[in-house]
């Protein structure tokens, strides 16, 4: 049985937690956020990550769902133990390209953890887009955590040229978010692999 190392609380296999940058738009501030989040996850000893840019996915607009799977994206989702979505708030909603990409898989997500990082140009750090995404996550079989990442005033939070973080408080805030996601990812991986419906 692939259980956990009870002495350290670490899974025997490292967790794989890809970060999805959820907007293809030019000039996106979310790119700095996604790079920061991916670096924070990569620094964790128990987890590996990969940054996925929806702009780089090969998904035709003429159809939808699993009919348009991008094989590399689907394979990455299959390998994932948890996901982090970095999502800007556009008119209170989520980018259509992100929904288009997420809808191209299903079995790849079932009983995996997801954390959402909201990004906004104004105050509140994408809280409205996070709320809007919750029912979508549930329908895809993903399990949401109760910490969110919130990046208000994104243009002022990162150096626009270098992408360097200008608000150090985000480091500790994101650490709490990742802690919760890692816990949920460990629990759900154990459950997927060992706890059966009878």
């Amino acid at each position, binding site marked *: 049985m692939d259980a956990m190392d009870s002495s350290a609380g670490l899974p025997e296999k490292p967790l794989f937690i890809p970060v999805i940058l959820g907007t293809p738009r030019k000039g996106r501030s979310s790119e700095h956020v996604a790079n920061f989040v991916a670096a924070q996850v990569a620094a964790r000893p128990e987890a590996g990550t990969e940054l996925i840019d929806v702009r780089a996915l090969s998904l035709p607009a003429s159809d939808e769902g699993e009919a348009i799977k991008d094989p590399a994206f689907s394979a990455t989702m299959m390998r994932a133990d948890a996901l982090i979505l970095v999502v800007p708030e556009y008119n209170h909603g989520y980018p259509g390209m992100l929904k288009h990409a997420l809808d191209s898989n299903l*079995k790849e997500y*079932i009983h995996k953890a997801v954390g959402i990082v909201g990004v906004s140009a104004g105050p509140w750090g994408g809280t409205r887009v996070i709320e809007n995404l919750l029912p979508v996550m549930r329908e895809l079989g993903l399990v949401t955590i109760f910490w969110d990442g919130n990046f208000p005033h994104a243009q002022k939070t990162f150096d626009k040229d270098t992408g360097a973080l200008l608000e150090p408080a985000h480091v500790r805030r994101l650490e709490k978010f990742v802690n919760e996601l890692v816990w949920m990812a460990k629990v759900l991986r154990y459950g997927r*692999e060992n706890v059966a419906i009878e």
Partner: protein
Amino acid sequence: MAQREKLKCPGCGGEMNFHAEKVDYSKALADPQSMDAEFGGALEEFHTCPRCKLTVERPATD
């Protein structure tokens, strides 16, 4: 309660763990034969392999 027979992983041959069921509405649209009239979509089950992490979706068996 009797245990179900474990599905063999098509990737590595290991025993898979059955951990979820879900109504897949898209599948029923693409394949009307898969429609479960009581649920209004295709009732699917999901099995994950502890060894290679592959997840398999297949029609529910009951």
